[in-house]
């Protein structure tokens, strides 16, 4: 095994991540304004920006989904119990004792089990809740003729709001997690440069050296 600087976040993933982050912040900010929680932006401009950001994020997601499936990177999000307990134990206990983080990034698995479980949860529960309620909300005029549409709109709007708050809570925890282990800068840097320190098996290293040399930073 040898530690090498390997490009594990290709350009698209980084653009995806940061664009998504920006749009989620824009959506949270404008959305909370639309909800009436703040009045930094007037309602009209907030509504337009919220819709625009939502449409952009939808487009980005369509690209990302396509990208995940064509590149096979969707496997990164397949949940595993392997090592999950160790990670949970570390965050709940070990971190206070100054223990080493129990999980090391390997080439085909850049998220720790807790991370991939959380991201999977986001992807299959929270984000769909946001999208489904958001699209229903936005297209209210197409279904307002169904009986009790006003009542359903109320439900849709409140579920959308709830989903938004779950995303907000996730963002809080997500950012905090960056401060654990390697430290904030060490965590954020790979999401900017794409390179992270990875333990490579001799076979992996040989493969990368031969077939994907661009992924290895010359040390």
């Amino acid at each position: 095994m040898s530690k090498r600087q390997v490009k594990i976040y290709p350009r698209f993933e980084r653009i995806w991540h940061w664009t998504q982050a920006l749009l989620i912040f824009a959506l949270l900010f404008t959305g909370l304004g639309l909800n009436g929680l703040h009045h930094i932006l007037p309602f009209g401009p907030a509504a337009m920006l919220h819709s625009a950001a939502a449409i952009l994020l939808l487009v980005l997601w369509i690209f990302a989904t396509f990208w995940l499936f064509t590149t096979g990177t969707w496997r990164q999000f397949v949940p595993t119990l392997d090592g999950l307990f160790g990670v949970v134990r570390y965050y709940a206990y070990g971190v206070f004792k100054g223990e080493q983080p129990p999980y090391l990034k390997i080439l085909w698995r850049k998220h720790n089990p807790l991370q991939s479980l959380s991201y999977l949860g986001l992807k299959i529960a929270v984000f769909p809740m946001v999208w489904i309620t958001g699209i229903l909300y936005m297209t209210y005029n197409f279904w307002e003729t169904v009986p009790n549409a006003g009542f359903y709109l109320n439900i849709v709007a409140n579920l959308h709001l709830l989903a938004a708050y779950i995303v907000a809570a996730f963002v809080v925890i997500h950012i905090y997690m960056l401060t654990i282990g390697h430290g904030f800068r060490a965590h954020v840097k790979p999401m900017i440069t794409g390179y992270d320190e990875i333990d490579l098996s001799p076979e992996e290293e040989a493969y990368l050296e031969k077939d994907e040399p661009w992924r290895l930073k010359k040390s």
Partner: protein
Amino acid sequence: MRYQRVLNGFAAGLALLTLSLGAQAQQSTAPDAPEIPVGATSTADHSKFAILQRDFTSGPEVTSACLTCHTEADDQMMHSIHFTWEFENPKTGQLLGKRHVINSFCGNVAGNEPRCTSCHAGYGWDDMSNPPPRQSTVGTGWDTTLPRPTPANGQNNAVDCLACHDRSGQYTKAATLAGHPPLNPMPDGLKTITGAKAWVVDLKRAAQSVGPTGRDNCGNCHFYGGGGDNVKHGDLSSVLYKPTKEVDVHMAADGLNFTCSTCHVADQHQIAGSRYDAMATDPHGTGKPGAARTTATCESCHSDRPHPIAASNPLEVLRGVKLNDHTNRVACQTCHIPEFARGGVATKTLWDWSTAGQLDNGKIIKREEYTQSDGKELHTYLSTKGDFEWGEDVVPYYSWFNGKVEYTMPETIIDPSKPVEINHIFGSADDPDSRIWPFKRMIGRQAYDAGFNKLAYSHVWGPETDTAFWTNFDWAKAIKAGMKAAGSDYSGEYGFVDTRMYWPIAHMVAPAEKALECKDCHAEDGRLEGLDGFYMPGRNPVSTAGIFGILMVLAALLGVLGHGLLRLVSNKKQGKNHE
């Protein structure tokens, strides 16, 4: 249809008219004629008609002359609400019209006819218990060289053609002569229907001037309803004789310069638009060939998708789409008439009749404690009428409205323990035909029959009688006489009851950039705060889901703060040991 075509044809020509009546309200000489585009689009110049080359001595004589060519106009007019003052509401079956209703302004016509029917589009209606007279015999002195246009059989010369078609600008009706114009000899102190000192009308000049209706023709009555400028409607005032774009984007003299009839299209003297049977929305069409034109709604011209979505800026496109999404729930007027009584003329917002009759040592009290923005002092108390309140730039009262209106009729049993709705407007959030509409909500306090619990008629005008309230200040006599004039049973006891009356606001459309903004409604305590039964984003940030969500985020924050704090106190080396 012929008349309608002529009307439409003249719309462009009328755009050239300069109306000056508004500025001349106080003068006693006849106002100057507005510029008449004779021959501009019409094939007739009435000043060349032989039958009009003479001195007329009465209004009906002019009508007789008109009817020799316009053979069906009298019959058409006599079936119009302008003449009958009667309207059967197809939605409720109620028989309405000024002839039948009691309102919260001047009350009732019965018993006060010569005063009230001064705005009647006919001559000589001085008895409400009978329909308006069809023929008038007033006037003699025809030029014997001309065929004498006395009404032929079936011809109805009590119709007042000039009230609506005079374009000389100097035709008017006297305030107290049951529809007749001021002519020589003129009673002392006579006023016109707009409250100006009366002048002698030149009927010949008026007859030769006729053309399609101008704003002055409609406005001279409709702007002065309820006893003064803008008193009644709130969105119809003398400002509309010559409004700026800010006040009315359609009627602005330096803009589109619409007349009333541009929207209130007439067909055989039936004029589109009704406050009794309102169109809360217009499902009929947008003025395409063959589409219904007997509508006077915004949608008739602007469609139900009025906001542009072809802008170059994507955000503007989103804006247009979102605004168009509102049209099936919000009337155009709601956003586009942000306030009424704009342009400098106030509207009466409260009229309390119960305080009328107070005298100062037998003398009439007049207080003028409201100053209109143009500097004019308005009455806040009159011994004849009671207490008033006024408003300018008034924020409307908003309500769901589907066009159905039910009136509290003189025979309706009321509950005097709470405010009586003179007209109840129908509609709700659950009703797909309802829109959120702006209204002027008139607050009133008026007489009622305390024995039978119904609204009371009162006899207020009639200088020579000993029952008229305005000369005798005795409610008991005035109400008894009013009930008698209307043929209504009277218990003999009267009281005063709080009333509310709703006037849909549809005029004084502001330019688009002055329309309401989203935040005016989408906010806590926004303009629609009083409306329930629907979900509107922005009005309730602390809903159950909202509170739950906020608690969840707070819990996450507290969790990470606690976690971080524990890390700090438990292991100082944490974060440095993995370099």
